[in-house]
Every structure is written in structure tokens, then in C-alpha cells.
């Protein structure tokens, strides 16, 4: 087909950019990779150190304390079910990947969200980037991630963090901006500094919304585990991936159910963590 202009070499520019980053910041990426790898493996080792039944009970008690007894019981039964399916270690690997991603999504996301809520210019720059992060097909992150971090769990974590962070940032901004204007006026009228306004009023009042963002981040990073397994991240996602390539329906469903159980447990616990102990309507 004849075109008026030659094809734009956009992909070339990106490739050159990636090469340049690897050449110049290779050691930085190695350092990041080491931290992430150590963290994920540390989680796995720590969790695997405890016998499965005992760990299931510990999780159940934590779930009960944070949310309700019903969810505690569901947690116990769910984890024991996964254990008896024989996926315990895979489940721990997946959980460690999710935990690591979420920790980074929170540690990076909340400060960015707070910053964005304070300055309109920052917000105007952040929001399109968030849109990009969320709409770009997740597979696309994996390709440069392999170049930067090799195959294995690390590119999986990085892709999960990028994919899972936007809700935390968005809802942190939203939660802080939703604090009623007259409360902000009140803090100003009493002579609060910006930090006092944020730490004493805005962030505490935004907490339920921020928790909803973290909940969303957890769910999104869970949804990334299968994709992450394509670059070599171990865990339940890898089992699903293998079942798909080998067309094993039974195993696929088994693992799928296990992932769903973990998802429900994490979702219910974090939802309750957000709604509990807020306001003073219940004396």
C-alpha cells in the first residue's frame, strides 16, 4: 500500500530507549530485582516454615479479629480445602507475589495519591499516566520487564505493581478530596499547618476510601498472577497456565477455584478493615 509518509519508527524509538536504560541503569535494575526477589522468597520461606494446618488456623484467627467470625470460619475451611487439593506451596508462592506487589503499590501509591490531592498540577499529570497504566494490555509490561529483570518472579511482581497501583492512587486522591470543604475551612480557621490538616483530618477521614483502593489493588494483583506466570513467576498462576497449554480442564478448574477462594478471603478481610472503627455512630 502506498502511503504519503514513511512508516513512523515508533517501535524503534522504544527499543532504543529500553536499550539505553539497560546500558545506563543496569545496576539499578539489578538492585531492584534483588530486593524484590529476596522479599518474595522471604515471604514464601517464612510462610512455608509454619505447618499448613497451623498456618490456616492463624489466618482464620486473623480474619476473625479483623472482620467477622463467619469470614474466619470461611478462611479456615478455604485454606484447608486448598491444602487437601495439594496446592499449598503454590498458594503460598502466589500469596507472596501478591503481598509483595501490594506492599509496593501501597508504599508508592499512597504518597503519590496524597501529593496529587494537594497540588492540581501534580494531579493533572498523574491522572493520564494512571489511565495509561490501567488500559495498556498487561502483557505489554512483561516484555521490557524481562529485559530489565530477567525471567522469574521479579518481572511478574513489577508488572503486578504497575497494574495494581492505580486504584490505590486514585482512591487516595478521591478520599482526601471528598473531605467536606467546611471541615477543611475549620482546620484552616484554627491555624493548622498543611501537614496537620492532612494528618489529623484529611487522611483519617479518607481512610475508608483509601482502604477500598487497597482492596482493589489486591484484587488486581491477584488477577495478574496467571499473566505473571508466563514470564516464569511460580505459584497457582503457573498451574493455571500449564493446565491451559495442556488442555487439562479438571486441573484448570481445581486451581481456578483455589485462586477464587484466596481472592474472596483477601477481599472480605480488607473490606472489613476499611469499614470497621470508623465514625462514631455505634457507641
Amino acid at each position, binding site marked *: 500500500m502506498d502511503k504519503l509518509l514513511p512508516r513512523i519508527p515508533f517501535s524503534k524509538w522504544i527499543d532504543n530507549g529500553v536499550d539505553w536504560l539497560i546500558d545506563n541503569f543496569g545496576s539499578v535494575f539489578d538492585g531492584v530485582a534483588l530486593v524484590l526477589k529476596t522479599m518474595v522468597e522471604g515471604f514464601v520461606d517464612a510462610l512455608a516454615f509454619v505447618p499448613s494446618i497451623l498456618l490456616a488456623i492463624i489466618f482464620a484467627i486473623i480474619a476473625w479479629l479483623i472482620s467477622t467470625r463467619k469470614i474466619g470460619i470461611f478462611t479456615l475451611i478455604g485454606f484447608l480445602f486448598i491444602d487437601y487439593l495439594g496446592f499449598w506451596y503454590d498458594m503460598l508462592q502466589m500469596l507472596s507475589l501478591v503481598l509483595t506487589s501490594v506492599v509496593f503499590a501501597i508504599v508508592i501509591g499512597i504518597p503519590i495519591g496524597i501529593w496529587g490531592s494537594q497540588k492540581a498540577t501534580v494531579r493533572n499529570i498523574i491522572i493520564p499516566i494512571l489511565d495509561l497504566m490501567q488500559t495498556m494490555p498487561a502483557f505489554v509490561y512483561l516484555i521490557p520487564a524481562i529485559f530489565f529483570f530477567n525471567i522469574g518472579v521479579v518481572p511478574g511482581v513489577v508488572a503486578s505493581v504497575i497494574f495494581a497501583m492505580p486504584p490505590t492512587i486514585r482512591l487516595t486522591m478521591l478520599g482526601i478530596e471528598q473531605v*467536606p470543604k*467546611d*471541615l477543611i*475551612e*475549620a*482546620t*484552616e*480557621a*484554627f*491555624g*493548622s*499547618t498543611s501537614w*496537620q490538616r492532612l494528618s*489529623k*483530618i484529611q487522611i*483519617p*477521614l479518607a481512610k475508608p476510601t483509601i482502604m477500598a483502593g487497597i482492596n482493589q489493588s489486591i484484587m488486581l494483583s491477584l488477577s495478574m498472577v496467571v499473566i505473571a506466570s508466563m514470564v516464569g513467576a511460580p505459584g497457582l498462576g503457573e498451574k493455571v497456565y500449564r493446565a491451559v497449554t495442556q488442555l487439562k480442564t479438571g486441573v484448570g478448574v481445581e486451581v481456578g477455584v483455589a485462586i477464587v477462594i484466596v481472592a474472596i478471603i483477601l477481599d472480605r478481610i480488607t473490606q472489613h478493615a476499611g469499614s470497621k472503627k*470508623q*465514625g*462514631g*455512630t455505634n*457507641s
Partner: protein
Amino acid sequence: MAEQIAKKKIEVKDATKIFGRNSRKAVQLLNEGMTKEEILKVAGATVGVKNASFDVYDGEIFVIMGLSGSGKSTLVRLLNRLIDPTTGHILIDGDDIVAMNKEQLRGVRRKKIGMVFQNFALFPHKTILSNTEYGLEIQGFSKEERQSKAKEALRLVGLVGYEEQYPSQLSGGMQQRVGLARALANNPDILLMDEAFSALDPLIRKDMQDELLQLHNNMGKTIVFITHDLDEALRIGDRIALMKDGEIVQIGTPEEILMNPSDEYVERFVEDVDLSKVLTAGHIMKQADTVQVDRGPRVALRLMKRLRISSIYVVDKKGKLLGAVTAQEALNATENNQSLDEVLITDLPMIPEDRVLTELFDIVSKATIPVAVIDEKERLLGIIIRGAFIGALSGNGQFINENRVVDMVDEKNTEVNGNG
């Protein structure tokens, strides 16, 4: 007047606030005499407050009143720079807060000015006590100190025992008490109250007004009170500034505003006022004819005959009101050779000069002789006649005294009054 001598606490000098992008241009247009609507059309900017100038004296209650959109809430926010004025100066204790940097401004807000908001603006995640502590907390007071001050403030507004409750557990009136306590806890000189009682129902509102007046009497703070309710303004204000379209149209005492509206707008505003809540006995009393007690019944009788009245008030040498005597009684006394003392009616209706008319309906309607208005030494200042009472309520100016104080009269006064 006493207020004129008092120290100026807040001075607002030619303050203007323009909302919108072209504020500089709008100020220029405003100075050229354009109206609010024209500026909105030409520059796309909204005039919030236009060339406001006024002083608030130490210890007075200064009410800024106007309808919604008149700029009163913007104006009060200029006073602690929650909104920055576009031009003009605002002086608090002589210091221009417009020229202050953030740090100095924070200092003024922390030490000198407390604010109470229309919708209370309590922090829902904090208890009543820690809400009240907030202003002290951010100043870094120790926990014990701020708690004891906060408890004292809560005691002042009558909320002992609610310290550990949350705002949502309290009624509207109680929540606003917390708002007031929070502002008082810092012990500021100035209280800004932005429609503080407007969200409360009428009965609670009246209670709160009374309590505010009492607190004001006890603590002597300077209060700037914003309201859209004229009755409220007249009830609590020492002086009132009336606003319209961002401009102050009149500043004066409640009486001045009622009696001499500066223009049609003010006049229309005040015409629906319930006069019985504003006018006092002093406004409608007439000069009274009296007779000194030692002159005897004959003199009293002659005086009544000459003045064509059926009863007369009897006073002692110092003008202290002793009672009244009717023509019939005086006639009986002359026939039986009694002194005036013996035929006096002493259980007279007597009221102080500052009693408002709403509280007089009952007394005036039951009285058989005109109601006596007395001062604190029980001297007779004047009398209230039923006809004048009704005439004043109907808004007829000829029954209302411009000057509240009517000179005391004695028996030599020959001016005829239609007693009875």
C-alpha cells in the same frame, strides 16, 4: 456613644473580593463605577465583596446581615483570610493581616480569632472532647493542659458529660455548642460566627441566642455574627451592617436601621419586622403627669380636672413612684379629709424601660390605668397608653419616640396628655 470611644478591634478598609481570573481588570472596572452584572459580562469575574469598610469595636456584637448571595459569608472569611481580599486592608488590633506571611497569619488564627460554622464543621472521627481540643492540639499544648481547657469550654456551653461521645450522636443544637466550645477553647479575642444558628430549629435557636448573649456578657469577646435573619440580627446585634450585592448599604444600631432605613432596599427589608420584638417600652411611653404626695387630694383633683384625665400618678419629692389615684378616690378623700397616702392604689403595673413590647401585651391589656415605666430607682419615666401601644405596633411613626429617654415631668408641666 460608648462604642465610639472603645478600641477598634477589627478595621476593614476598602476591602474588595473578586472571584475569577480577571480580578485585576475587574477591580479597575469596579472603580470606574461598573455594576456587578456588567463586570460579570465584560470580565467574566464575580464580585463577592465590593469596597467594604467598617470597624468593629472591642467587646461588641457586630452583625453582618443580608440575603444569600449578598457576600456576607465572603466578607467574614476575609476577616481571617480564609479568603484573600483582592484589594484592601484588614487590620486586627492594628496589624494588617493582608500583609502577613503564612506563619504570622497562622499565629493570628491560633491566638486571636475563633470561628463557628453554619453546619458545625465538627470532625466526625473525633470525640467531642478531642474536637474541642483541636485548636490547642495543633498549637502543641500538652495533653493535660488542652484537656482541662477543653473541658472548661464545654462546661461554659453546658455540655458536661458528653466528652466521649461522637458528633453524630448529638442533636444539632448540641453539635453547635461543641462548635462554640471548640472556638472558645483557644480563648480568642474575636469570635466569627458564620450563620452559626441558621441550621437550628427556631426554639433551639432562641436558646442559643440567649446563651450567646450571656456568654458575651460574661466574657466580653468581640463577636462578628453573620445571619440572613433580621429578627436574629436585631435581637443580638449591638450594631448591624446590612449587605446587598456585595456592598454594605447601611451600618447602625438596630434602632437606627429600623427607624431610619438608608434606602429603599433596607426599608423593604425591615418592613416585615415584627415590631413588637424590637420596640421597647421606652419607645412608646408618653410623658406622665404626676402629683407630689404631700400636695394633698385637692391639688390632685384640680390637676386631673384641668388636664381632663381620670387618674394621676403620685410621686415623692425625689420622683419615686408611690402609686396612683383616681378622680373618684381623690374626691372621696377630700370629703372625708383623708391624705393622698390613704387612698393610693399601690399595686400598679410597673415595667422597666427596656422591656420589649411582646412581653407587654398581657400587662397592657389588663391594666385599668396606664402602665407605668420606671427606671432602676423606681422613678417614673413615662406611661404607656393602650392607643399608642397599638399605634406603634401598626408601624405608625408618630407613636414611636425617636429619643428613648423622655424627661421626667412634674406637676408644673402644663402640657396636656390624653391620660386614660
